[in-house]
């Protein structure tokens, strides 16, 4: 226990932040996408440490199983000749760095200055059944809206990415 934090938490957060930094600094796009996957896995482990089993497994299933593969496919489909013809970092990179450092310092100042020392809560007894019941009772409206949103996004993504050579053909 270092600073009152468990060793597992420290290792997992180092893994997560290292993955995010690698995604920021690497030149090769596919390496960036793979380190993004490492970040997602680290975040899933952090959710599991917060006793959010469903969210952790859903994170692995959706982000690593679908979004990471989507990103990788998009990278492969948009490669030119394989060699990047432009520089990796934008010309205004310093401004971006300063802004994000400012955001981080503001957020961490807010966290450190304002968290009172509260007692540790007991582990909430959360089963997947409770989540299902909540989804069907209190949260049924957001559930339906998300369903419509996902359908619209699916159709929209297909239409946006469809090749235009289908003018003279059937479907």
């Amino acid at each position, binding site marked *: 226990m270092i*600073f009152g934090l468990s060793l597992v938490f420290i290792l997992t*957060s180092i893994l*997560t*932040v290292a993955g*995010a930094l690698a*995604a*920021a600094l690497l030149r090769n796009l596919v390496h960036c*996408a793979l380190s*993004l996957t490492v*970040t997602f896995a680290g975040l899933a482990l*952090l*959710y599991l440490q917060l*006793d*959010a089993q*469903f*969210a952790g497994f*859903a*994170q692995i299933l*959706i*982000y690593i199983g679908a*979004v990471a593969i*989507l*990103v990788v496919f*998009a990278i492969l*489909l*948009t490669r*030119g000749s394989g060699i990047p013809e*432009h520089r*990796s*970092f*934008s*010309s*205004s*990179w310093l*401004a*971006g*760095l300063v*802004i*994000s450092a400012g*955001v*981080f310092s503001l*957020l*961490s100042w807010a*966290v450190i200055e304002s968290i009172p020392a*509260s007692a*540790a*809560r007991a582990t*909430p007894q*959360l089963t997947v059944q*409770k*989540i299902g019941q*909540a*989804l069907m009772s209190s949260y049924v409206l957001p559930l339906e809206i998300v369903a419509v949103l*996902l359908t619209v*996004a*699916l159709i*929209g993504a*297909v239409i*946006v*990415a469809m090749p235009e050579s289908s003018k003279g053909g059937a479907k």
Partner: protein
Amino acid sequence: MTPLAAFLIVAALVFAIGLAISLTRRNAILVLIGIELMLNAANLNLIAFWRFGPHPEALTGMMFAIFSIAVAAAEAAVGLGLAIAYHRSKKTTDLDAMTRMKG
């Protein structure tokens, strides 16, 4: 340092790194990766506050995080579809060259 503060600082760090990626890299797909990182950091915040907050049995934080995961996945799909469509006509994904919306 309480566990809650530690989780929030990790989330702030991942958020800042995601913001840095979106602001400094030139490839459109990397900007989308940065956006995904920011959304994930916000999810971590939500779950941390759900766990250490006053009413974890109300499941508010957990539900919010689950819906956020779903919406982020949909947005990633549409964003990457846009990047692919742009590449098909202009053969580039360089953000500094995407100065016009025509075509």
